[in-house]
């Protein structure tokens, strides 16, 4: 009977956001939409093992969820118009006579990521409503209790209705203005799943959502760039840690364990990704992902992409990474000069990656004592124990 359970999981992953989004559009009731979608999944888990998997699993789930919603609304005696519209909901919906129909899921993404909501609320709402992640899991990732997260989600949904946040995909210049905000929410979701102590499952959810966004907005280069960036980073997931769970640097990783399929897909996406900030980061990631060994890395190309990135937004971290890339491409002296520029004003003081980068460049420049001292300073500044161990190891290496 695990086949049926697998079919529910697969159909649910595909159909859940579609069902929730369609029910919200017709009923305007977020909680009702989520409850009915969840109940349809529960019903499938009960019935499919017994009756067999239906020919159109997504359609079965949509019909079941829709019928639940009709029941609830009928009991609540809601206007006839909503019920009539509900009765017409099918999955997939019949093609409209003219093109230009907006996918309900896209409406849902733009509403969950509306700038009138606080950023943490956008992330939580996206996870709950579109990805269907249980509230308890989101609460854990946000380091709050489940009841606090439930309250936050409820407040956000109430605010959508009370403030008049539209359930609509913006068009024209408004789309251009709003898309970066949507991409930022997905990026935050991904980094939460990718960081040393993040929730790994969220990285996969972020990829699913980025894939959906790219499918729905195929002409938007940054949507392609973001998906490429995620895929290329995620391709290293099996090689990023040693058996003790400590993070490994790129040159320490076993490249045979990188996910080739993800790399090929990510690199192929770059054709459509343009040169926005996400696309440029993806191009850097692609240079690493396609190098057979660490020594084969095309550092001049990476340095060039960072030059682009600095022109788009000279943030301290981008300037730091640019200095490192130039150090590998054109020698440690070039890197140290750019690093000194990036650190002017003191914004990177005590930022461990800046100390570690200066230590590496100094070591390669030949000043071993100073490099060892810098590695130890970086080790003092980091909070994570595994990183601290790795930095102290480097300090010992260079002073040998």
């Amino acid at each position, binding site marked *: 009977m695990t086949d049926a359970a697998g079919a529910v999981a697969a159909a649910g992953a595909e159909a859940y956001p579609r069902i929730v989004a369609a029910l919200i559009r017709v009923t305007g009731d977020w909680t009702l939409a989520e409850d009915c979608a969840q109940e349809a999944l529960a019903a499938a888990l009960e019935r499919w093992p017994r009756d067999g998997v239906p020919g159109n699993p997504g359609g079965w789930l949509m019909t079941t969820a829709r019928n639940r919603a009709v029941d609830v609304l009928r009991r609540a005696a809601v206007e006839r118009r909503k019920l009539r519209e509900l009765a017409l909901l099918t999955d997939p919906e019949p093609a409209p006579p003219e093109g230009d129909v907006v996918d309900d899921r896209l409406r849902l993404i733009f509403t969950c990521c*509306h700038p*009138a909501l606080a950023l943490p609320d956008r992330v939580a709402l996206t996870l709950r409503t579109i990805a269907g992640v249980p509230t308890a899991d989101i609460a854990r990732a946000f380091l709050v209790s489940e009841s606090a997260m439930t309250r936050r989600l409820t407040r956000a949904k109430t605010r959508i209705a*009370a*403030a*008049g*946040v*539209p359930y*609509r995909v913006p068009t024209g210049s*408004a789309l251009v203005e709003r898309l970066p905000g949507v991409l930022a929410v997905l990026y935050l979701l991904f980094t939460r799943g990718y960081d040393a102590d993040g929730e790994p499952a969220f990285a996969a959810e972020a990829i699913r959502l980025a894939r959906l966004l790219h499918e729905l907005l195929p002409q938007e280069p940054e949507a392609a760039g973001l998906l490429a960036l995620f895929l290329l980073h995620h391709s290293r997931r099996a090689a990023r840690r040693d058996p003790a769970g400590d993070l490994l640097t790129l040159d320490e990783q076993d490249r045979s364990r990188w996910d080739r399929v993800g790399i090929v897909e990510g690199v192929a996406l770059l054709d459509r990704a343009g040169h926005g900030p996400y696309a440029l980061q993806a191009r850097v990631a692609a240079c690493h992902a396609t190098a057979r060994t660490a020594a084969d890395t095309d550092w001049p190309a990476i340095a060039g992409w960072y030059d682009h990135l600095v022109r788009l937004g000279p943030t301290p971290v981008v300037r730091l990474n640019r200095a490192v890339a130039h150090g590998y491409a054109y020698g440690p002296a070039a890197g140290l000069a750019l690093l000194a520029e990036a650190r002017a004003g003191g914004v990177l003081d005590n930022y461990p990656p800046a100390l570690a980068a200066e230590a590496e460049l100094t070591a390669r420049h030949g000043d071993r004592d100073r490099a060892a001292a810098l590695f130890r300073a970086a080790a003092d500044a980091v909070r994570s124990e595994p990183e601290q161990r790795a930095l102290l190891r480097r300090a010992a290496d260079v002073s040998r």
Partner: protein
Amino acid sequence: MKYMMLVCTDTEPDMDPSAAPDIEQWVAERDANGQRVTGSRFAPPSAATTVRVRDGELLLTDGPFAETKEVIVGFDLLECADLDEAVEVARAHPMAYAGRIELRPLVD
């Protein structure tokens, strides 16, 4: 939906007030397309009177109820389809540059 648009001063106005749109044109356009139901500028806070009744006694205070540097200098009542439309109206107002604007949906 109806939105009450509260037009406020701010302690940190936009550095380049010449970029702000013209108020006469803003009013004329929103009156013409029906987005602005009504609105007005307020007399200065020194003309305000705060009214309270406590234990059946009428208490009057001169000045606004909150002493702050930022004051409400006017209002416009908007009729918009949703928050996005109201934000578009508000962002085109000169005081979005020189001050700030609070959008408060009306209940019903």
